[in-house]
């Protein structure tokens, strides 16, 4: 009987280790939030070139993470990139209407993300609004091309 309970204990610890491991993978490795996901609101922004921006990239403001990119699609009307992002709802109605969005790169070759900078207009952005003033991604090839053609002149 004693042997049996020891065996059961072993299997129990084994199962527990599996569950704890999954929790670790969820929380620590994939950064899953605890509990219900935060309320969010949606903003759109059109960029003439998004470079290497991908869905799930972070959206920051003064370097602080405030949301993420949920979807990127081609706007068939203007043929530019329409970036849909979700921001924490605590900023809903707080960002001025002339907020600018820029695609930035962390480090020289790091991932690309969106940086928001607030303006001074009294009206504010709400769910589903579009950010008008955007700055496209820095594409290294274009920069090099410009540099080379400047050198040639």
């Amino acid at each position, binding site marked *: 009987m004693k042997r049996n309970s020891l*065996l*059961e204990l*072993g*299997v129990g*610890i*084994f*199962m527990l*280790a*599996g569950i704890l*491991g*999954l929790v*670790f*993978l*969820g929380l*620590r*490795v*994939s*950064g*899953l939030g605890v509990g219900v996901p935060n309320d969010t609101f949606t903003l759109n922004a059109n960029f003439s070139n998004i470079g290497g921006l991908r869905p*799930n990239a*972070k959206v920051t403001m003064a370097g602080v993470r405030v949301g993420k990119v949920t979807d990127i699609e081609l706007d068939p009307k203007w043929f530019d990139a329409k970036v849909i992002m979700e921001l924490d709802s605590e900023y809903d109605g707080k960002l001025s209407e002339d907020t600018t969005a820029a695609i930035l790169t962390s*480090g*020289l*070759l*790091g*991932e690309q993300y969106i940086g928001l900078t607030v303006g001074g207009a009294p009206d504010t952005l709400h769910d589903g609004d579009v950010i008008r003033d955007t700055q496209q991604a820095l594409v290294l090839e274009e920069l090099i091309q410009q540099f080379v053609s400047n050198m040639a002149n």
Partner: protein
Amino acid sequence: MIDRIALLGRGTLEMLAAVGRAGLFLVQSIICLPSREGLHLWLRQMHFVGVMSVAIVLVSGLFIGMVLALQGFTILVGFGADEALGQMVALSLVRELAPVVAALLFAGRAGSALTAEIGLMKATEQLTSMEMIGVDPLRRIVAPRLWAGFVSLPILTVIFGVVGIWGGYLVGVKWLGVYDGSFWSNMQDSVSFVGDVLNGMVKSLVFGLVVTWIAVFQGYDLIPTSEGISRATTRTVVYASLAVLGLDFVLTALMFGDLG
């Protein structure tokens, strides 16, 4: 010439018959009403198949994570992107290495033992005796082992992944000096729970079923001689490894194929 064609036909028919037998065998043994006694048998197999495999999974997971970090660092540092080490280690472990390597280890450690055990039962006519006294060997012997393998491989995979990431952390952050914060935050930005962790789990569920299925079927279906047992054990490891690697490609193509 006719003989050759007939030989080919016979080989094909035998192979198809074996596949059919294996399918029937799986269906018959996996569908069984849970009983108190069955639960106890399952628990004993969980101990043998799962708990006893933890040590090898821990050690190999740790070393694979450490090697991954070391190799990744020397490549990434050339691009000045050593901060991406965390995401590289975590993604390759969670998506690929943990399910596949754990399944290969599992096939070698537990699968071969299952085949040999059931094969010896068959060779010593224990299975036939069971049928004689009215005990269904599929239920009594095969089903608990199948379920144990199916449940324990995903757990072993999780343990492998966690230990591997910890090994990568030890080498990358503690030894090579990658910044702690960016190691974890890059990892958290790029690993998605559903897309990566759960897909890895789905992989290991499939592998768990396939590996234990091959192992018990090879044991149940072997020629009951000592040579037959040794052949079946070898076949288990070879077939299970090939099945895992092949299925891994198919599953990866289905899960991540459209990621661009």
